[in-house]
């Protein structure tokens, strides 16, 4: 399974570049524009990332995550979710930069190639910042009541948490 991911990267790059060449796109100019966008969005997340990495670093140093893990491990074990990834599960729907900060702290503590690190990476990669998306889209359209949007979206988020654990452990 891991090999698929590793081969997918060069495959995707070659496919896109060759397709672009066939369609006579100005390849390098496009790449430059896109990469510049990448820099711009990194700079725009920098201030919130600094604030949140400091806070997550403080939580981690204070032993907050250890206390939280030991308190919640009975519940987590019953559901089958490692308590170490719970902080990520809690912040993922609320804040994008916050989940960057928490994921990076988990990867640093447990190692990016450990089971915990891999589950956390998969989880972070497979959901979006739910409440942010709801706020931006409904806000723009002038929708005031969200109906059953929030419960449905949270079901999707919770499923992705469970499925991340299952895929990493059993596939």
């Amino acid at each position: 399974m891991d090999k698929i991911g590793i081969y997918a990267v060069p495959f995707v790059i070659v496919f896109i570049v060759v397709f672009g060449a066939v369609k006579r796109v100005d390849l390098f100019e496009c790449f430059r524009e896109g990469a510049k966008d990448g820099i711009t969005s990194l700079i725009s997340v920098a201030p919130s990332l600094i604030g949140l990495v400091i806070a997550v670093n403080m939580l981690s140093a204070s032993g907050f995550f250890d206390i939280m893990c030991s308190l919640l491990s009975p519940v987590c074990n019953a559901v089958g979710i490692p308590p170490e990834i719970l902080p990520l599960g809690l912040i993922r729907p609320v804040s994008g930069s916050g989940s960057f900060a928490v994921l990076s702290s988990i990867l640093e503590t447990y190692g990016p190639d450990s089971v915990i690190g891999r589950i956390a990476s998969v989880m972070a990669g497979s959901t979006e910042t739910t409440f942010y998306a709801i706020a931006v889209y409904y806000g723009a359209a002038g929708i005031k009541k969200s109906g059953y949007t929030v419960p449905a979206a949270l079901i999707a988020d919770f499923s992705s948490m469970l499925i991340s654990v299952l895929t990493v452990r059993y596939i």
Partner: protein
Amino acid sequence: MLGYIWLFMIIASVVCSIINGKMDILAEAVTGGADKAIQLLISMAGVMCLWTGIMRIAEKSGITRGIAAALSPVLKRLMPDYSPESEAMQAVSANITANILGLGNAATPSGIRAMKEMQSGNRLGDRPNASMIMFVVINTASVQIIPATAAALRQAAGSSDPYSILPYVWISSVLALVAGIFAVKLFGRLRRGKNG
């Protein structure tokens, strides 16, 4: 919202360090964290820019149109309140395609346009109709070919294979999306049952 979470994080860390007797480490963590954030940004930047650059080529060369065409029959079934030729559905498919390719900057404007177009055909006033809810829920489950941010963070943390998680991300994001779609359908049916 984020302000309160931040406040909670800071107060919780001070309280926990007092309980655990780790006040000295906490002081270090504050300055260390600021430093770490910048190091993180720098070590992520290369990988992030690689993918935004590559995906821009995909966008310009019309791969996006191919994906949009492939998605159109599925989207028609999921959002039956709007015809596939409508402005609303054009924007919806542009938004979903941008998300699949990880073009965050292109996704938000087309998503907002989609929502506004859908709202103009919405007979429920300030309440979203079933198709609008479906669109938002699809948006919150992020199905993407290359989860660049997660890969960049893994790279920054010194992973031996930052991209080994790709197939797992594909499977779990697609299954989470399916769960979200079922949830929307189920709640929609319950709501209709209650009203009728």
